[in-house]
């Protein structure tokens, strides 16, 4: 016998032949935990121009019918692109720690 290893053990029973995934929300868990800085929108200044929604690489910015943006903090990684592209400069990046201190 060339090889005595059990080639179909239960531990690999449903394992695919190669790695692949289907698009689902949060397949890697709540990736918002990777964030150091959180974007905060100043809604008084926001012109609802949708620029942040368009540029968000994680597609975590949704909008109301009138264009009001909302950030899903469960998956926002805090890259800061929305803050950079905002023409009204009304998105600020706030260190999560400071935020927690303020809240405390």
């Amino acid at each position, binding site marked *: 016998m060339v090889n005595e290893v059990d080639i179909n053990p239960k531990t690999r029973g449903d394992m695919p032949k190669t790695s692949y*995934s289907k*698009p689902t929300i949060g397949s890697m868990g709540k990736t918002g935990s990777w964030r150091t800085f959180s974007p905060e929108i100043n809604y008084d200044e926001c012109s609802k121009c949708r620029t942040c929604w368009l540029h968000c690489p994680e597609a975590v910015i949704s909008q109301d019918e009138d264009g009001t943006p909302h950030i899903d903090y469960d998956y926002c990684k805090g890259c800061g692109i929305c803050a950079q592209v905002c023409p009204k400069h009304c998105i600020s990046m706030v260190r999560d720690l400071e935020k927690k201190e303020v809240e405390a």
Partner: protein
Amino acid sequence: MKTMLMSANYAAARATVSARVEVVAAYPITPATTVPEQIALLSEDGVFKGEFIRVESEHSAMFACIGASSTGARAFTATSSNGLLYMDEGLHWAAAARLPIVISNINRSVSPSWNIHVTHDDSMSKRDTGWIQFYSASVDELYHTIIQSFKLAEDERVLLPVMVNADGFVLSHTVSTFDYLEPEEVDKFLPPYNPPHWKMDPDDPVSHGNIVFPEHYQEFRYQMHESNKNALTVFEEVEKEYKKLFGKYFGGPIDCYKCDDAEVIFTSQGTIGAEAKDAIDELREEGHKVGNARVRMVRPFPVEKIRELASKVKAFASFDRSASYGFGGPVANDIRASLYHTDYRPFVKSYIGGFGGRDITVPDIKEIVLDTVNVVESGELGPEETWHDLR
């Protein structure tokens, strides 16, 4: 089935028509050039009905095949030597992504020195990529092995790419008759490819080749290893069915000739194995009990078949048209490794030669086999490795 007269490269091109290949992506390199050239001509004439993609390099050729195969298309390419090596990353990729691509590699020496003739160094250096490897000895065998390779590659128990090798010029440009099968005939043997697990489809999107952490990477590789070994069993089935349908059979993973009562068996890969039959006939006439075992399948390595032969013979004269530099003949070493944990102890003499297209003819093979016959008679192994016709 009808008889056609063509070079091996043209016959390989015809195999893509017979097997209803859907995508060919290839870049020209001597001596493989006339394979894609002929497919392009057949495409222009409407005989080849798939897509022919003219890419800018062999690296792109392999990755275009990977893309095509990922969508469930039957994909094929052809190359040689440096072209095959330029595909290297893609070769590993295709195997681990479990894509049943078939490549016809027309063996050519690797440079430098610049040489367009046959050495098996190009494909032998790729034997650890996970690809199944065949070496062919005739136009007919190359043509039919390509068709069989799709069936083997697409079998769920295997699901790996296959490389069908042919000696540059010696076979690739040799014109010979072969039995051509119309695609309508092949249909009953080779159904359309339907990926069993996933495919790239905009209506049902998947991401493949994803990141895999240390917890699982090894298990994917292990599955690849097992599936590669499965090819031995599956190929047996494939050949049996093919023989039943079309009456064509080329001898399994190791094509044996006059081996039954042989004391010394000559092993080799590619066209030398065909030439060797004449040498064996002459040696038999001279009273030597010798046989010829042409190793058609190098990966997976036919370990059990080697052991079966080893149980009966006194010596192997193993001929490699390539070298694992610093360790010797790749197939000779595989034969030795296959026997270590058995009780069979035939001499395994390794002969290396025929590089850069240097002819290996009947007198060369007779000289090699007789050298091993002398080992059996004297009981003295002599050198473990001999570079044949070394100046």
